[in-house]
């Protein structure tokens, strides 16, 4: 990915001093701050207007950072979203990433590291503090395994990462249009993935596939 030397960044945080501190850290490294806002709806509005390269969003600002993340990424596929928050909760990390953020940073970080993380995210890297990565791995390890699916994997071709992603969204209740929007795919492509998933799982409907991944009997 081509990274501009002077990327434009939007800052959304409900504390004015934090916004000022984040701005200082970015500007010291030649990163332009194109907008400062204090809540989720202003963040979406300013992003649509300014079309920044990257948005730094607080998680617990009024209106919720993850909600702003999904709106911004669905309307502006060229804009990268990174969360900057005090929350170390796995649930916040997972929700933010699911809703379009490619990075999650903590406010107790060294400000000098922020421009480095911003440029890394713009270069296509996922940015996540190591301490949080460990917590996430732990969380994912303790999730119940979808046994039937694991069993199936032995004699059927395994699902691709993209197919797993779509299957999880189906399990969340998302439809073709929503999945297409969230993954920046066309609806035709999503339907093709879904039919491939159904074929690999040996089921005939999305509902059966979802029951299967939940470890339930698909024929119920």
């Amino acid at each position, binding site marked *: 990915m081509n990274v501009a030397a002077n990327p434009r960044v939007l800052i959304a945080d409900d504390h004015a001093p934090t916004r000022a*501190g984040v701005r200082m850290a970015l500007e010291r490294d030649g990163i332009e701050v194109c907008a400062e806002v204090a809540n989720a709806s202003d963040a979406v509005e300013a992003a649509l207007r300014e079309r920044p390269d990257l948005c730094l969003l607080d998680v617990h600002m009024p209106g919720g950072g993850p909600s702003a993340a999904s709106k911004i990424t669905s309307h502006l596929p060229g804009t990268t979203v990174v969360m900057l928050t005090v929350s170390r909760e796995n649930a916040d990390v997972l929700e933010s990433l699911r809703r379009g953020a490619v990075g999650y940073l903590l406010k107790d970080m060294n*400000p000098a590291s922020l421009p480095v993380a911003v440029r890394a995210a713009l270069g296509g890297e996922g940015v996540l503090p190591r301490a949080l990565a460990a917590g996430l791995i732990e969380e994912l390890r303790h999730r119940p395994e979808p046994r039937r699916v694991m069993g199936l994997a032995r004699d059927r071709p395994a699902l691709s990462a993209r197919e797993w992603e779509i299957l999880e969204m189906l399990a969340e209740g998302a439809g073709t249009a929503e999945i297409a929007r969230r993954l920046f795919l066309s609806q035709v492509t999503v339907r093709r993935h879904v039919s491939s998933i159904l074929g690999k799982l040996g089921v005939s409907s999305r509902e059966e596939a979802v029951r299967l991944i939940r470890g339930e009997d698909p024929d119920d």
Partner: protein
Amino acid sequence: MRVVIADDHAFYREGLARLLRKFGVDVVGEAPDGETAIRLVEETSPDVILLDLRMPGVSGLEAVRILTEKAASARVLVLSVSAEESDVTDALVAGASGYVLKDEPVEEVIAGIRATAAGGARISPGTASALLGRVRGAIEAGDDLAGGGLSTTELQVLDLVAAGKADREVSERLSIGEGTVGDYVRSIVTKLQVESRIRDARRTA
């Protein structure tokens, strides 16, 4: 006015220092934790210490106690994300002269610095709302301490501050001197401190 800022988040601390300097406030020290704050206050003798309640190491409340005991001339203004009535009361009872919420405009911090540096007390609108809720609850519950201790004027001051009224408007509405709003707030804070000591005494009696 010379101030020390104590907050564990560098973005917030450095950003606040920059904003305060624009308002002509002299930021003489920045501390990422309570221990450093205590050392900096000894070294620089600031007029006001801006203190976050939740920092690693020495707890915010402990820092308030140590700072107000060690540096009797220095005033502690708490800057906190918490609008919990118990956090507000605990901080004021521990010796803080003021309390401002972090999501309130930076002008509230400036007003807090001015008032506390002059020896008065200052609570922001969000903080006053929290205290008012407690006082009203106590009055309804027939508690002889929390509500009964405050005079009618003090309750009215609390009410108007909670509604976001500026000192000038509060003084005009209540026909009290503009410079005395801070005195009423200080009196409210003092009564909270006294009330807390009485409760402690009753508990141990």
